[in-house]
């Protein structure tokens, strides 16, 4: 395979003389001719000679093109050639330096990255004049230090000093692809890739054939398959514990209310760690500390911290553990939106004659504390009837609850769909007044509408059905996994709407009745979520409202549904950050301040009827701030994937797989690499010059022969004249 194989596609041109010859044969003129006897004699006499002449000329022309194209593809032969002067083949080197988060690890006070830089410097030291070099930084999106390889390798020493570790994974598949792309940019024949890494298994994703397929294909497609050397820096064994999660118990957090945060700590090391301090801080409070014992081998421990926020707005919650050799993951920050009120619209279809039941639901959403007149519910509930429903928008309401509504007129259906699509929450509790046909027609719409399922009313049951106690995982119900917080088996249902899980990927059953019919079923619609309840708050249908956990169940569900009003504030590296601006805001741009305090400006755009500012350059982990025109600040936290904290290196099996799949060799240490890569030089000679000379000779021969064949005709003509 030559060095520039893509050129070989032009080899098809070599067939051009034959094609032209055949085309000419096809495009003949026709002459009615009398002197056939002489023509036949001539053809008979000269056909063999003509054929040989034609073949000879065609062969020469084909050969001429083939030689030129092949020369342009820069072929080579391994080893020296006697006719070509021996010269040291030039290296085309790309060094892949892993700067993923794990490279910050510094058990011996020399961080892995610093060791990596030193290894790169040694490789540079081995290169000679004329060798080309580029360095690709692996970590997140791979990034070459220079746009293309250069032969002036000294400049890399300064650039190397400024390389900082990233917070992201190494992503070796992409990094090697980038290295191959860099190799293509240099014409030096000896292609070599040096990978300097801590060999963290997560960054390699060895044995995942699908992930490597692309890279392996690029590697095989390359002209001269490069040699890959892997050099490990750092040690083979790592000890590391990390904060791997902060999750608020509710999606919406309110002021003056105890908000619980579940914190997960994971020990990826091999040694058990005891009495590890876990500290919890927020912007407006003192530090809270607890101690945990961490089992080894990737086991996690969850601890909960409770905190009451005094001020509404975007807040940061910070959890840290005692620092270890990799301090980057010993602290985790989370951004939380703290509300002073969550506006809820309760559309109640229950007749005014029965004043008790609507009161029960309203009370559940907006409880009152008779002993504390200052108590203010987080959910600010506004009650109305369907025909007096105000216009909906996520800036006015975070959640709409439809209880026992008879039917929803067209205009309101469209309004509701728009509201949920743009992130609003909807809780639907059909009841005795509800017309299933109308619901199915306008709200279910054969699966295209808001409802997750069709309504089918079940006649009153002889024996009540109880709800099932389940290991709830859904955030709205997670609290009731522990029966102490609320035993679902105490819920009795006398009459209900039967729902069928359409299993269309959009719906999910949250809780079930004893007969396996869903009690709550959820659907995602656009940015928002809809939960459909099989029963209303009606004593003729269920005893739910009499249960002690009725209030927390309603509150949790409401917080959960209201939580989708705002875009996520805690995202993975590379994910975009979005800020919804209120309609009354006049800001045209939003200022973004990244973790390194660099300022960026983002334009506000109209999207789905909302004003949105989106920032996409989130390659650095840390806290970002977005400031709208009114000076309101919103925090965002960009995190690396939690597996990056697991510095477990490739095991021998995985190393063997990488060696086999990529044809790479893993060096034991620098000396081993030096012997393998630099002590013996691969012999390789290009011979395109010979091909050009051959092409010139063929051209001369072709000209000569064409002239000779033509001259023969002229001579005879002249003789005749």
């Amino acid at each position: 395979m030559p060095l520039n194989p893509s050129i070989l596609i032009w080899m098809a041109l070599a067939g051009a003389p034959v094609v032209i010859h055949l085309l000419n044969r096809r495009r003949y003129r026709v002459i009615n001719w009398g002197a056939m006897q002489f023509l036949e004699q001539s053809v008979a006499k000269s056909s063999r000679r003509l054929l040989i002449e034609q073949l000879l000329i065609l062969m020469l022309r084909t050969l001429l093109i083939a030689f030129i194209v092949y020369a342009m593809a820069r072929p080579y032969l391994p080893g020296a050639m006697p006719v070509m002067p021996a010269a040291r083949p030039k290296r085309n080197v790309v060094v892949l330096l892993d700067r993923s988060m794990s490279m910050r690890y510094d058990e011996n006070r020399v961080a892995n990255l610093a060791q990596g830089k030193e290894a790169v410097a040694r490789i540079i030291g081995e290169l000679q004049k004329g060798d080309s070099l580029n360095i690709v930084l692996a970590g997140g999106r791979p990034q070459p230090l220079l746009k293309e390889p250069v032969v002036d390798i000294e400049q890399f020493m300064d650039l190397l000093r400024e390389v900082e570790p990233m917070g992201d994974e190494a992503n070796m598949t992409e990094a090697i692809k980038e290295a191959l792309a860099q190799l293509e940019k240099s014409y030096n024949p000896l292609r070599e890739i040096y990978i300097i890494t801590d060999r963290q298994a997560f960054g390699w994703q060895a044995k995942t054939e699908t992930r490597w397929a692309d890279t392996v294909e690029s590697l095989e497609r390359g002209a001269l398959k490069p040699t890959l050397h892997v050099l490990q820096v750092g040690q083979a064994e790592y000890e590391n514990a990390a904060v791997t999660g902060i999750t608020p118990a509710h999606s919406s957090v309110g002021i003056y209310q105890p908000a619980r945060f579940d914190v997960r700590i994971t020990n990826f090391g091999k040694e058990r760690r005891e009495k590890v301090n876990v500290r919890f801080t927020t912007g407006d409070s003192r530090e809270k500390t607890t101690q945990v014992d961490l089992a080894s081998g990737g086991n996690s421990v969850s601890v909960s911290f409770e905190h009451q926020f005094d001020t509404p707005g975007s807040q940061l919650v910070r959890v840290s553990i005692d620092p270890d050799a990799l301090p980057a993951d010993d602290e985790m920050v989370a951004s939380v939106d703290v509300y002073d009120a969550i506006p809820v619209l309760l559309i109640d279809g229950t007749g005014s004659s029965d004043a008790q039941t609507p009161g029960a639901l309203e009370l559940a959403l907006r409880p009152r504390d008779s002993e504390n007149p200052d108590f203010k519910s987080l959910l600010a509930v506004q009650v109305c009837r369907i025909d007096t429903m105000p216009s909906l928008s996520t800036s006015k309401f975070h959640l709409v609850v439809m209880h026992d509504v008879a039917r929803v007129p067209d205009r309101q259906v469209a309004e509701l769909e728009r509201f949920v699509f743009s992130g609003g929450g909807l809780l639907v509790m059909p009841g005795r007044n509800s017309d299933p046909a109308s619901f199915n027609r306008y709200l279910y719409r054969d699966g295209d509408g808001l409802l997750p399922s069709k309504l089918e009313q079940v006649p009153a049951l002889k024996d009540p059905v109880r709800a099932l106690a389940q290991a709830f995982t859904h955030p709205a119900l997670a609290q009731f996994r522990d029966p102490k917080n609320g035993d679902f088996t105490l819920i009795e249902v006398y009459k209900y709407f039967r729902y069928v899980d359409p299993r269309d990927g959009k719906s999910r059953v949250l809780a079930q009745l004893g007969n396996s019919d869903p009690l709550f079923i959820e659907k995602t619609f656009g940015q928002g979520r809809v939960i459909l309840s099989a029963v209303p708050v009606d004593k003729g249908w269920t005893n739910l409202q009499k249960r002690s956990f009725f209030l927390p169940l309603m509150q949790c569900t409401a917080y959960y549904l209201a939580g989708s009003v705002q875009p996520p504030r805690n995202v993975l590296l590379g994910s975009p950050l979005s800020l919804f601006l209120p309609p009354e805001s006049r800001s045209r741009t939003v200022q973004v301040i990244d973790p390194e305090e660099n300022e960026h400006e983002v334009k506000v755009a109209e999207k789905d009827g909302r004003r949105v500012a989106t920032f996409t350059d989130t390659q650095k982990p840390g806290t970002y701030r977005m400031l709208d025109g009114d000076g309101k600040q919103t925090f965002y936290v960009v995190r690396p994937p939690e597996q990056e904290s697991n510095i477990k290196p490739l095991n021998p099996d995985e190393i063997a797989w990488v060696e086999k799949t990529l044809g790479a060799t893993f060096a034991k240490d620098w000396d081993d690499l030096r012997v393998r890569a630099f002590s013996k030089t691969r012999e390789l000679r290009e011979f395109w010059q010979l091909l050009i000379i051959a092409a010139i000779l063929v051209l001369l021969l072709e000209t000569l022969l064409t002239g000779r064949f033509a001259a023969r005709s002229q001579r005879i003509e002249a003789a005749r004249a």
Partner: protein
Amino acid sequence: MPETSKLSEYLKPENLQKLARMEIIARLVVEGFITGMHKSPHRGFSVEFAEHRQYVPGDEIRHINWKAFARSDRYYIKQYEEETNLRGYILLDCSASMSYQSNGSVSKLFYGKCLAAALSYLMLQQQDSAGLITFDSAVKTYLPPRANPTHLKAILHQIDEAKIGKETSLSNIFHDLAERIKKRGLIIIISDLFDNIKDIMSGLTHFRHKKHEVLIFQVLDPDELTFPFRSWTMFNNLENDGHKLLTEPQRIRAAYLRSLNGFVAELRRGCGQKRIDFEQLNTRVPFDTALAAYLANRMS
């Protein structure tokens, strides 16, 4: 001599093609030719006066020399050596190969027709007798030679009527005619002579054996002489439908010319040996050459 040059321009074959009537063509050709010679052919060899003899009853009164009667008061009859001393047989080849016509020239048949017309006219003008035979694979028309000037009309009519026929078979025709033509005469062959050379020579020898003088006008198209084609060409045989040959002409040009020239040279040599006059004409050459060749033959 502007008039002459105009006339000679007019006498070019391609210009004559525009004239419809053979008679006019023939006359123009001959008169133009004679004008060019500046010499009347009638003086040298036309009516060969021999002697006067006494009128005897039975002689035609129109032959009495009234001037001599005025002088001598006796009836004398003008005596000629022979009323006509030449029997000319014009053999015109109408085979399919004669239809070839390159750009800017006339077809070989048309050229041959003009030539035949001109020769007939010339012969009859000279009191010679002229006959016409047209043929392809067989004899198509046979007009025996007559010296009567009105015979010209018949000849020209036949020339006009002559159409392109099938393939040639010269040898058979020549043998056949050699047997049919009893009286010794001048055989003028107008043909491209595309046939087997041995057969042709055998036919010609037969004519010579019968004591005929033979004059051959080989009419060829310039394309046939130079083979100027370049790009790939399919040659369809004019004399044999379905016989085709696809070739790159420039590559076989040399061989073709060699083959043609060899054929002509052999023909020339054979004719020379048999004392046959051979003249090669190409369809762009004015008729002077042909007529001059005829007259040279006639005078020898």
